[in-house]
């Protein structure tokens, strides 16, 4: 049981409070961006390239402009006049807003049509005639590295190849030495395919520029409204849109998962058109545009190696990555981390030699490298280490659970310095795995498996024991475009003891309106029902870098606690004044200060707040407000132990997940109901790339599955009934000991599932399967080892 310090009425940490935000969503009163309707609003649709790589010979908009209701057709040449045809990416690469001469991927924006209705805009889009001269695209990242590969980014002066950057970490010499001397080494090639977040709400905006006041209001599906405001000012400052003239409003968001962090060309075009016409411009993507053009996630080709002893002691790991970024690096990583936090890939194991390197290349695919409910490339890293661990266990013939138990970093060894430079804050990996093994009856399952094999039945058990790294981040290392990655909270308590708190983050379903209120309630003793939470309006909320990478609780959640503590200190000073005692004589219990040894002499928080407005001590500033910008001293390191059991049909290769137990450790828990909900959702988003989802391109650059007909988002039928639980190892450096959880399950689930599937068919000679593991792929792999005739 989770212990709560506050009463149910106050509803601080540990209470499964029902969500405050639900009321509007269950009654159809949410306010998503496509619900925004402004007087005089016009609609934008986008003409997109049918080719992956082509010269644009001509754009003829005359037919489109003849359609009644069509106001304008905007091309790259038009934007070029204002120097708005290119924009920076968050990784300081460059991306076209609209092309002036070349398209670099299929479905790239080519021109925008503006019309008085959505329907007319759609008709006009068909009527824009574009003449292309197709070229042979570069689709394979390995071929992109060939010396004779065409240089895709010839727009960059002096660019002579398709290489973007090289990155490395760890001690190469030491690691190589360990590998040379090791009794056992294993090597596994893995591809973490391109996938798409596919939030059910696509991206969109309403850009509304007021010419009279030179002021832009941008309603936009963004996870990071403040950062977007700064980016808009950087891109459009030269035309007079300076930062104080920009208000970004992120209304309710229908799922983000990382896909709503970047600035997409459509946003910039909408702003440009609104700026030029003074009309509000609405742009809402179709699903196919969303899947085909918005930033992808992953696409890492990994060569993973492990060295160890015959008894199963892990000694070293070595990872080499080729990252396919499409035609521009449009990742949303912290600036100094081109591979994100991939270096967490040494895993949960105690060894001290590791070396990782990565190279990124351009191809004729959509840009990106964003998350998919993942903290900056952690999923790739965890998949690599957790698959590799099983490959190693299989090589030496050791039970994968025992191998993990034998190699885990011990609870007492935290903080633990990883060979790639992290300082893991806390964890109890043995307890987590033991709990998962007990829940699923691991030992009995192994006995059952042996029996089933005799009967020709395929059952497999897969484990993943991962360490996450979230909560970016400490300002000494973490920034985006130079802006440090702290986050903020501002709390205002009204005279009657009710509060409003505002944040630099932005919920997309995580339940901030509830959990932030619980944090403030925990610290101040004000009932959470009376704490209003607001985010997403840059005019009112304090600056912050937004919600992604499981950073909200570690950063803004900490800021909430710190701001509340400032207020509690103030309340204490007021209490001392009112009770005529010194501050040292006061004690706090949730909701009131009382005099030590005389509990009847007390003042409630409500009385103290009222006094701050009506009877504050002489010399003290009136009012009851505080702001805090929290700069985390370290990242947080949530962990988990997941076990998956699969049954596979030996004829059709249909894979059924029989059970899946997930034990998560995200430190102290603010709201168990919400944490569990996050785990459920993350698990299904882990299942998705493990068995269903992948963006597939042919050699000509065509996307083969750009709709929900073929991009296979799991339904309730594919998704099993998840079994969840937790261990608690508080983050020692975090004000409330919390670590963040939204992405752990997406990170941890795929290797558990794949390890289970491989385990089910290992006796037939299968050593590894690439994700997504579909029945078709499994059939082909089995056939390749001679199983099917």
């Amino acid at each position, binding site marked *: 049981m989770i212990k709560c310090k506050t009463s149910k009425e106050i509803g601080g940490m540990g209470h*499964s409070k*029902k*969500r405050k*935000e*639900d*009321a*509007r*969503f*269950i*009654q*159809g*009163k*949410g306010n*998503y961006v*496509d*619900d925004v*309707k402004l007087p005089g609003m016009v609609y934008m649709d986008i003409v997109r390239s049918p080719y992956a790589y082509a010269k644009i010979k001509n754009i003829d908009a005359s037919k489109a402009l003849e359609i009644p209701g069509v106001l304008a057709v905007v091309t790259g040449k038009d934007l070029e006049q204002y120097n708005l045809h290119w924009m920076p990416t968050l990784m300081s690469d460059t991306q076209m807003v609209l092309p002036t001469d070349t398209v670099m991927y299929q479905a790239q924006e080519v021109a925008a049509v503006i019309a008085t209705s*959505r*329907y007319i805009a759609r008709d006009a889009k068909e009527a824009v005639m574009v003449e292309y001269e197709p070229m042979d695209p570069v689709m394979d990242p390995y071929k992109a590295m060939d010396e004779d590969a065409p240089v895709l980014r010839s727009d960059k002066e002096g660019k002579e190849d398709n290489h973007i950057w090289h990155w490395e970490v760890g001690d190469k010499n030491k690691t190589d030495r360990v590998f040379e001397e090791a009794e056992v080494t294993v090597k596994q090639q893995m591809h973490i395919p391109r996938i798409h977040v*596919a*939030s*059910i*709400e*696509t991206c969109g905006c309403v850009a509304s520029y007021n010419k009279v006041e030179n002021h832009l209001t941008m309603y936009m599906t963004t996870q990071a409204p403040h950062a977007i405001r700064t980016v808009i000012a950087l891109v459009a400052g030269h035309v007079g849109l300076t930062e104080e003239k920009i208000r970004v409003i992120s209304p*309710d*968001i*229908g*799922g*983000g*998962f990382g896909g709503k962090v970047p600035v997409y060309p459509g946003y910039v075009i909408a702003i440009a058109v609104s700026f030029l016409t003074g009309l509000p411009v609405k742009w809402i993507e179709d*699903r*196919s545009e969303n899947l085909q053009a918005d930033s992808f996630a992953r696409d890492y080709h990994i060569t993973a190696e492990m060295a160890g002893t015959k008894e199963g002691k892990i000694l070293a790991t070595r990872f080499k990555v080729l990252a396919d970024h499409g035609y521009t690096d449009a990742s949303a990583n912290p600036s100094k981390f081109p591979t994100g936090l991939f270096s967490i890939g040494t895993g949960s194991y105690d060894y001290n030699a590791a070396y990782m390197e990565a190279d990124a290349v351009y191809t004729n695919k959509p840009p990106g490298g964003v998350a998919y409910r993942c903290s900056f490339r952690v999923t790739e890293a965890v998949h690599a280490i957790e698959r590799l661990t099983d490959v190693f266990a299989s090589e030496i013939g050791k039970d994968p659970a025992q191998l993990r138990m034998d190699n885990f970093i011990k609870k007492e060894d935290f903080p633990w310095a990883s060979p790639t430079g992290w300082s893991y804050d806390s964890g109890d990996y043995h307890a987590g795995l033991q709990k998962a093994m007990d829940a699923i009856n691991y030992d009995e399952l192994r006995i059952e498996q042996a029996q089933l094999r005799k009967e020709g039945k395929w059952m497999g058990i897969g484990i993943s024991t991962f360490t996450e790294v979230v909560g970016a981040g400490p300002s000494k290392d973490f920034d985006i475009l130079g802006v440090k990655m702290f986050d903020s909270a501002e709390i205002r308590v009204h005279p009657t003891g009710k509060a409003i708190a505002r944040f630099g983050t932005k919920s997309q*379903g*995580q*339940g901030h309106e509830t959990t932030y209120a619980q944090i403030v309630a925990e610290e101040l003793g004000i009932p959470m029902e009376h704490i209003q939470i607001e985010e997403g309006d840059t005019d009112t909320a304090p600056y912050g870098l937004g919600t992604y990478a499981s950073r909200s609780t570690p950063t803004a959640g900490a800021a909430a606690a710190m701001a509340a503590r400032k207020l509690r200190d103030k309340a204490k000073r007021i209490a001392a004044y009112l009770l005529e005692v010194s501050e040292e004589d006061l004690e706090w219990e949730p909701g009131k200060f009382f005099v030590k040894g005389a509990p009847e002499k007390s003042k409630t928080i409500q009385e103290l707040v009222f006094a701050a407005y009506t009877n504050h001590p002489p010399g003290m500033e009136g009012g009851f407000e505080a702001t805090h910008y929290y700069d985390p001293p370290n990242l947080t390191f949530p962990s988990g132990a997941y076990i998956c059991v699969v049954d596979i049909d030996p004829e059709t290769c249909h894979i059924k997940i029989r059970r899946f137990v997930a034990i998560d450790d995200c430190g102290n828990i603010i709201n*168990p*109901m*919400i*944490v*569990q*909900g996050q*785990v*459920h*959702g993350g*698990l*299904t*988003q882990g299942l998705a790339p493990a068995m269903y989802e992948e963006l597939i391109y042919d050699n000509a650059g065509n996307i083969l599955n750009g*709709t*929900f*007909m073929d991009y296979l*988002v799991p*339904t*309730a*039928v594919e*998704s099993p*009934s*998840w079994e*969840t*639980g*937790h261990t608690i190892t508080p983050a020692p450096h975090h004000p409330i000991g919390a670590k963040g959880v939204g992405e752990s399950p997406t990170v941890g689930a795929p290797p558990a599932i794949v390890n289970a599937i491989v385990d089910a068919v290992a006796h037939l000679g299968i050593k590894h399967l690439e994700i997504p593991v579909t029945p078709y792929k499994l059939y082909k792999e089995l056939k390749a080892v001679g199983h099917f005739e």
Partner: protein
Amino acid sequence: MKKSINITVNGADHTIEVEPRTLLVHAVREILNMTGTHIGCDTSSCGACTILINGKSAKSCTILAIQADGKEITTVEGLATQEGLHPIQEGFHLAHALHCGFCTPGMMMRAIEMLEKNPNPTEEEIRWGISGNLCRCTGYNNIVKAIQWASAKMEGRELPSTEPEFV
């Protein structure tokens, strides 16, 4: 080009002008300004636009407004009454069956017709019953639980716990 149609939405009669190609979801959202019904795809795959037409759950992005002429439509805005929330709304809230809320209206409308036809469905029947509705946030566990709760409430059975089994 435009034609006049009569539709009853959540009990209120409306006469509206639509093009033949106007999708029912656009008529509801943009002409009648009821934006609780959402659009999540182009291919009738996601179910975010699910409403009831004469009591049958329908993907309103794949039905022309003109096809609904003379029909009765129920949207999420029509679920709560003076007496309070519909049991399915209560169930979704209590069981934490929504995160971002975008799929929720369609999911609830689908669940309502399912429970109408099968008042006490098994978990398997619920999962198949909502297989035309995608949710990206919840992993479906709690949606199943919410529908089970609503089923019990509507049938007058003992209400199952909606507390998280997160130990």
